């Protein structure tokens, strides 16, 4: 085989690892007495975490570790949400250790994201920056390197978000290779965003939360090759798909046919063993992949390596005027912002920001942030509910209405907690330890 035929052919793998905190069956009659500890269904979250750990995280990480050792040239990247890391600490130190083992190979890159897997990029710049910073700190502490590349929740991306990432100091940012933005161009090129100036107030907020000391001159955009990514993530076990059954050899040959600088294969890590069960042969497929890539002359690179090897190559412009994502066929935000339930839930949770931050109560702050996890809003999606599709598959609740019932109770309770805590605080301030009230930071809304 001709490993020399086209040495620049390259693949960039990135796997998303995330688990939300699902809500308890909360009751209106308990509101006011529930408190942050009671919002989340620890039993269910534990059970789901262990189930996915046994089916996916542990076997997939074990396999990856072998592959990385057997193929020193093999490279992959992960993004672990902060709430996933929190759950590892609660329910699965073994899982976290297995990721550390992967990190120790030096062949794995860990990306940055919002700690709470939130949609804060759309609602509160200050909150967004705080979450990204907390996540970067955590990743550095766990795995040694401060992340250089940013991926926003659900690959939500826009010119503004790219500009914020640039100012925060990220070298690269991930996005969906959506047809409506590429307009016939290849997703295999590295792109850049149009030059853009954020309002001074926004720049000041960003400056306070820098991830890296210096902003990047041009942040490169890595676009997901959705067709090839989805061949693995969604179609792999579909018997009615003409590509079934998919072998590594065939798949790599498709990658090889692909023109361009890099083929970016982005997917949920749960693809391996959870969305595609072990009996579909997904692990055998994965096991054969590095060898097959090498045999067909394709190298693998991490996102940072991909950016570094692009050198001074000029990047064409990708103009994402409106935010979009990697979800559904629409690739828009309607999976989280498509109906009155979602808008009400988002509005209600972000409305508490000033109060939460003024409370100075870390437990309330953490809970408020866990309620920002995008999954809560995804479970409220009704657009395909009647057809019983992927939204239903991924929801732990019986219906979007049931999801809203629980969510609205949690927010109501949190609101009461905050009111109480501010009353307490006022009492304290009027008492003998009169404190100087620090006015809460103004947060600029991006929209």
């Amino acid at each position, binding site marked *: 085989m001709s490993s020399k035929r086209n040495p620049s052919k390259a693949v960039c793998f990135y796997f998303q690892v995330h688990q939300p905190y699902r809500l308890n*069956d909360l*009751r*209106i*009659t308990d509101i006011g007495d529930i408190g942050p500890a009671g919002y989340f269904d620890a039993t269910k979250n534990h059970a789901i975490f262990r189930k996915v750990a046994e089916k996916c995280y542990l076997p997939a990480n074990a396999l990856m570790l072998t592959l990385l050792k057997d193929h020193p040239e093999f490279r992959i990247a992960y993004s672990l949400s902060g709430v996933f890391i929190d759950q590892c600490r609660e329910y699965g130190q073994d899982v976290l250790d297995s990721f550390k083992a992967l990190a120790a190979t030096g062949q794995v890159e860990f990306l940055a994201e919002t700690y709470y897997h939130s949609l804060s990029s759309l609602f509160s710049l200050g909150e967004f920056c705080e979450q990204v910073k907390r996540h970067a700190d955590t990743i550095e502490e766990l795995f040694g390197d401060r992340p250089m590349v940013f991926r926003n929740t659900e690959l939500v991306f826009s010119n503004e978000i790219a500009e914020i990432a640039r100012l925060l100091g990220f070298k690269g940012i991930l996005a969906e290779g959506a047809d409506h933005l590429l307009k016939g161009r290849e997703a295999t090129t590295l792109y850049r965003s149009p030059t853009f100036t954020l309002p001074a107030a926004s720049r000041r907020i960003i400056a306070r939360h820098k991830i890296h000391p210096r902003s990047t001159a041009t942040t490169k955009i890595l676009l997901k090759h959705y067709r090839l990514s989805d061949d693995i993530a969604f179609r792999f076990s579909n018997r009615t798909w003409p590509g079934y059954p998919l072998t590594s050899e065939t798949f790599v040959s498709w990658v090889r046919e692909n023109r361009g600088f890099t083929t970016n294969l982005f997917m949920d890590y749960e693809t391996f063993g959870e969305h595609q069960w072990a009996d579909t042969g997904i692990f055998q497929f994965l096991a054969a992949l590095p060898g097959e890539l090498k045999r067909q002359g394709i190298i693998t690179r991490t996102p940072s390596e991909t950016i570094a090897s692009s050198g001074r190559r000029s990047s064409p412009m990708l103009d994402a005027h409106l935010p979009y994502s990697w979800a559904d066929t629409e690739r828009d935000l309607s999976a989280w912002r498509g*109906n*009155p*339930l979602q*808008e*009400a839930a988002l509005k209600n949770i972000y409305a508490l920001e000033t109060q939460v931050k003024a409370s100075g109560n870390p437990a309330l702050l953490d809970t408020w942030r866990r309620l920002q996890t995008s999954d809560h809003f995804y479970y409220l999606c*009704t657009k395909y*509910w*009647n057809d019983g599709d992927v939204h239903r598959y991924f929801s732990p609740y*019986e*219906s*979007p*209405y*049931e999801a*809203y*019932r629980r969510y*609205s*109770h949690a927010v109501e309770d949190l609101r009461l907690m905050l009111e109480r805590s501010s009353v307490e605080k006022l009492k304290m301030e009027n008492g003998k330890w009169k404190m100087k009230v620090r006015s809460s930071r103004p947060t600029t809304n991006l929209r």
Partner: protein
Amino acid sequence: MFGWEYPPVHCGGLGVACQGIVRGLKHHGAAVTLVLPHDSASEDGVSILSTASLGVEGLIAVQTRLHPYDSAETFAARIADQQHADPLSPELYGRDLGEAVERFTASAVDLTKNVPADIVHSHDWMTIGAGVRAARALGKPLVAHVHATELDRTEFHPNAWIFAQELKGLQAADHVLAVSGYTKNLLTREYGIPEDKITVLHNGAFAAPHIDHHVERHDKRHPLVLFLGRLTVQKGVSYFLRAARKIADHRSDVRFVVAGEGYLLPQLIAQSCDMGLADKIIFAGRVTNAEARKLYQKADCFVMPSVSEPFGLVALEAITHGAPVVMSRQSGAAEVIQNSLVVDFWDTDKMADCILTVLREEPLRRAMHSQTPRVLKNLTWERQAGKIMAAYRDVIRINN
């Protein structure tokens, strides 16, 4: 087709469903001969249906005293009641339920022996015997349509004779149409009917002249929670009262309406007084279609707490008129009305919680209502009758 009640003479979902099916089948070009008992029409003192007004090819009336929702006990009670008022002597048609069914069955067969049918379709246990005999006499296949079973009506304490009638008929039928997956499960589990002999056919909705536009229905002073249905054990009204008590403990402004009549009425009134709900609950009694519509429109939440509900057309009517629905998981409607909150009928804590959430959350009401057109679009009688036609064709093909 052996039917039972037929609008405007009906007191439950069966008449509405039967009309929908007949109209839907006509839409698909089927010629329908409908055999109805005369009694249900005359009993309520409403004018008797005529062939012309129905628009079906032939309407043949058989006189019986049978009542669609009868169990043996209520039949006996009703016959006893009517001995004074009814000019027809009970002796003439038989005091005993078995005798009444037998009479309907025998007359029905006799009346249809010259009908050039390709298929015989019966509705529920009251007409299944007639269906079996007619099908046999005509040498045509029988499709038995199950809208409710004896187990649903009796909280799983069936009258042995009725259960036997159902079982015999369902076994003899060439194919069974079940009004929901819930009913199909029950037929396989409790009656041993093979799964592949049953097709699930959810009820349709009559296209409302218009789906009510969202209006802020909230009476600022007194939100209204509605129950509408027959006051029988099957409908789970007492669970509604328990939920009402819990709601009243939490919010004193909420008012409840229990609309419908039934043998439990006196008991329920007493129960609600004992529970201290006398000033919160209105028992509206029997309501006309127009009154029902008004109630749906005024309600801030509609509740269907049925213990065992093969379908539950009231839930469909409620969403059509813009009322958010909280309903029992033990119902067929929960399979198709996705824009509802679903609870186990016995879980009155959660039922109360769902109702309170609906009352508190305007976005929830709005979101639920906004999905109604999508739900109704999939549930037209034309569409459902198309599925019946397909089932007919299969049965006829297999029988040839």
